[in-house]
């Protein structure tokens, strides 16, 4: 058994220690926000947060994140009450197919929780490793800037 803290809730999961965190989130906990893209840590669609930092969950064995704070896109808000990051992505219509978006939001969230006033260069450099095959990068960058403004006035989530 593995004990995980996901979005503020402690959960017990029956998984082998080398199971990728992504599989546990999706298959055991039905948190399907984080996506399986390449499975090799190259695309960023599986990005979640661990202790405040962006982490590629497809190459992170569940054993190393026991008793650490895991946050997924489901932890940012709900459909009825989206968080500031999610609202910014909706308002900028940043998604085309949407597959990469949860990973984008989680990597951006990790940045803004640390620094709510990043320069555009800092945002670009921080987001460098998350890929979007539809090419909505300009909208994604605008969404992150919009979210940063919201973080500054009302805080993140």
């Amino acid at each position: 058994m593995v004990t995980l803290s996901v979005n503020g809730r402690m959960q017990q999961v029956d998984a082998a220690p080398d199971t990728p965190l992504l599989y546990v989130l999706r298959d055991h906990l039905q948190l399907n926000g984080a996506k399986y893209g390449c499975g090799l840590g190259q695309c960023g669609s599986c990005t979640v947060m661990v202790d405040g930092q962006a982490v590629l969950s497809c190459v992170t064995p569940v054993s190393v994140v026991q008793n650490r704070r895991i946050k997924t896109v489901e932890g940012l808000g709900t459909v009825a009450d989206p968080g500031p990051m999610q609202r910014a992505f909706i308002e900028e219509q940043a998604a085309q197919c949407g597959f990469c978006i949860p990973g984008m939001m989680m990597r951006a969230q990790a940045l803004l929780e640390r620094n709510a006033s990043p320069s555009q260069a800092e945002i670009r450099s921080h987001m460098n490793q998350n890929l979007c095959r539809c090419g909505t990068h300009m909208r994604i960058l605008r969404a992150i800037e919009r979210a940063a403004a919201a973080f500054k006035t009302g805080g993140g989530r």
Partner: protein
Amino acid sequence: MRMRGVLVRLRACAFGLLLLVGCASQPAIDSTEPPARAAFDAALIARGAQLAAIGNCKDCHTASAGKPYAGGRPLKTQFGTIYATNITPDAETGIGRWSEAAFRRAMHEGVDRQGRHLYPVFPYDHMTKVTDDDVKAIYAFVMTREPVRAETPPNRMLFPFNMRALVGGWKHFFFERGRFQPDSAQSTEWNRGAYLAEGLAHCGACHTPRNLLGAEKKSRAFAGGEAENWHAPALDAAAPAPVPWTAEQLYRYLRSGLDDVHDIAAGPMAGVTHNLASVSERDVRAIAVYIASLATEPTLARRKRSEDILAYAKRAQTSSAAAPRAAAADAPQSQSGAAIYAGACAMCHDNGRAISSAGALNLALSTAVTSPTPGNLIRIIVQGIEPREGERGRWMPAFAGALTAEQLADLTAYLRSEFGMAPAWRNVDAEVRKVMRGKE
């Protein structure tokens, strides 16, 4: 700390001596009007571009996210922080008013146009070997770049190293000026390689250890050194690569940043190989021939070991059940490291695929695992391998954030014993803390 205090004092005494024997400066060379582009022949500029790539000029003289050659990149040394200068032809903040003679003097003697000694972080101890013709071509290349107005921030040197006159004394003891002298016993190709590697490419600036005053130890040339917190492996007989390099493999590596039985270029070497990709095959081959000649013929034992490792890596490639071997020791640290390897590393490094976009180097072949210090391995795990922004290149994801300091140390120790098959590193915890704190 006490040891450190003694070192500082020793250095200070030595520099006192340098001050005595050094001359403060040299005469200025008159400034000129920035030359027009038409003043330079296109073929000369093209040759200069190749030479500048071999010299890796851009990597130091460009700040992160800065304009090429406009300087401003901080270079941390144990004597303080030096900012690389703007070498674009901007008249006010660059070298636009430098004549070719002034440029040549900087390359050959480490003196700027105004006559001040340059700090040897600019490797003029190597540039001094470059022929006048090649200096002319490099001058043509830099003087035809886009002029960028960018003031170089003032250096932040520790006292007494902020006195440039000391550099005059340093040169007296450690700087040997003069062009490259070929070795008639060697082939033309070897001599070409030696000329480039010892001169413009300044390989020894990183791969040769330095003395207390920051000068390369000539008696230990290519015995392994340091570059921006990375360990630059030995290139001589002590080279730590599990499989001895051949000239052909070095050639492939230098041009592509990858050799499938050695390594992916990481750290400062990634930039070097990126630049060499644009250089003529002939010159890169010559460098490879020369570097390969630095390591003596491998001993029978080393050859045998290398064959075993290659056979092991090949087996791992063809067997689909490429589970990692059980840890030799059953220590909890080793078990934790083995579990992390199985869950985080094996899916690329041990998945039965040859090296490709979906398969990574078998770690039994990795130089990072067999190096004398754990720093490079830890840095690669934490930072991954990433091409510079906007550039294509080799890739490994960063594990910063995923692994705690303790997990990193366990993994590092496990990789060393399991794949390096070498005595445990003693300073793993301290190195882990350094890398995690540094976020370099």
